């Protein structure tokens, strides 16, 4: 099975704090992988390490390797902007730019050098369709994105992410601020998107992990306690700590 991302012996430190400890995990192509674990266990730090978002934190340092398609992403020659184009991210709280719906999606295309208006318009339409938002916004593309509902804003952020054709989409609790209907729409979208993208999703909702992902990794105190097939992990976890966490006996 080809791996999109291979993480080997990854340790992450913020100053003196040892945040991630000996992380080893392989992420398969075109699969959804869920990361679960209590708050502060290192899930978000981990996904931010995958697109080098932690680089902006002065005390950040790491050892070990993170390979994207077999190439080390922390090599000095790597262009971080290009890396973040290949590994897109959707955050917990929808964060559209205070611009029109159209410009939100076109933004990434423009900063990556695209200028042909027709090509941009086509790409925006394609991305909004892929994010299952087109039918709801096609007649008001010039309206401010801030006027959309929370669920629509989150799908807009997904459209903005996929417009630049990443290989991997990182989602940090993408549904935690959404109502159940919007959550269902995002989950349906995740199922659709996995045909073309590799998705890693951080979630606190166990049922969401079982619904959307093929693989799940359980983080605790900066370590991966257990990872494997989601069905197996939720039905028959091997580690007592995993069982205790998913059954709600500690959190």
């Amino acid at each position, binding site marked *: 099975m080809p791996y999109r991302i291979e993480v080997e012996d990854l340790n992450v430190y913020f100053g003196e704090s040892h945040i991630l400890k000996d992380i080893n995990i392989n992420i398969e192509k075109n699969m959804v992988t869920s990361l679960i674990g209590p708050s502060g266990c290192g899930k978000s730090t981990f996904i931010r390490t995958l697109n080098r978002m932690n680089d902006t934190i002065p005390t950040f340092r790491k050892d070990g390797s993170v390979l994207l398609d077999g190439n080390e992403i922390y090599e000095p020659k790597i262009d971080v902007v290009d890396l973040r184009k290949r590994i897109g991210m959707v955050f917990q709280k929808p964060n559209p730019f205070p611009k029109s719906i159209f410009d939100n999606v076109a933004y990434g295309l423009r900063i990556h050098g695209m200028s042909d208006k027709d090509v941009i318009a086509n790409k925006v339409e394609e991305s909004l369709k892929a994010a299952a938002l087109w039918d709801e916004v096609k007649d008001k593309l010039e309206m401010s994105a801030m006027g959309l509902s929370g669920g629509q804003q989150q799908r807009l952020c997904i459209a903005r992410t996929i417009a630049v054709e990443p290989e991997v989409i990182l989602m940090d609790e993408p549904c935690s601020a959404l109502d159940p209907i919007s959550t269902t729409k995002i989950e349906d979208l995740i199922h659709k998107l996995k045909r073309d993208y590799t998705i890693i999703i951080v979630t606190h909702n*166990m049922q969401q992990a*079982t619904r959307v992902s093929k693989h799940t990794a359980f983080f605790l105190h900066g370590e991966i306690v257990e990872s494997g097939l989601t069905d197996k992990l939720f*039905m*028959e976890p091997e580690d007592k700590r995993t*069982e205790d966490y*998913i*059954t709600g*006996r*500690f*959190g």
Partner: protein
Amino acid sequence: MERRYPRVRFQKKLNYLKGDVEKMGQTSLSAYKKALEAFIDYDEKLVRDVNKANDKLYGMNYHLEQKAMSIIASEQPVAKDLRFIETCIKVSSHLKRMGGLASNIADVAKYIKDEEIPERPMVDIIHMADIVDGMMSKSISAFLNEDMNLVREIKRDDDKVDDLFDQALKDISDSMFQDKDAISFLIYLLFVARFLERIADRAENIGDRTIYMITCEKPGVAGRLDELIEDKTKK
């Protein structure tokens, strides 16, 4: 330091569910004992008691299912909790059927109460009934105490019951050939043997569900159970 937030209410609900299964087990076992008593020494009151217990078990099974579904809907259990709830539903259904079969035994007792039963098949059936009594107790206890060794015993007992059932069939048919007039009531003895054999199967089913609950695996082929017990002991 790790902070712990045990789901106290959820755990209580699981304990209540287990308590319900235990009560059903007691009701079913007591119905079975009374049915046997009525079979050996007919007493109409005992038959009525068994039938009442059977009705009660139907109601208990229904309420247990409702309770289990409500827990699933409100608590979204996973892993062993989910397997436990699923096993409670299954065990409850087996216990209800055991009560039904006990009631069947009590019902046919009246057809043989005044008859002279030949010794051979009666010995087979009484022997079967003793083993089945033990199997019922063991199956309930295996589930309640998560005791895989008891399941192993149940499986051995079931083989004995199957052998005795074959023997009983042979002895009953021999008796039928010897005295054709006896066929009219010996046929009921055949039913009793069949009911006992089916109760034994239900006890074995409870054992199998218990294994699944503990290990997430079906004992399946012979020897697999020993393997599972060994694995569990190592863990």
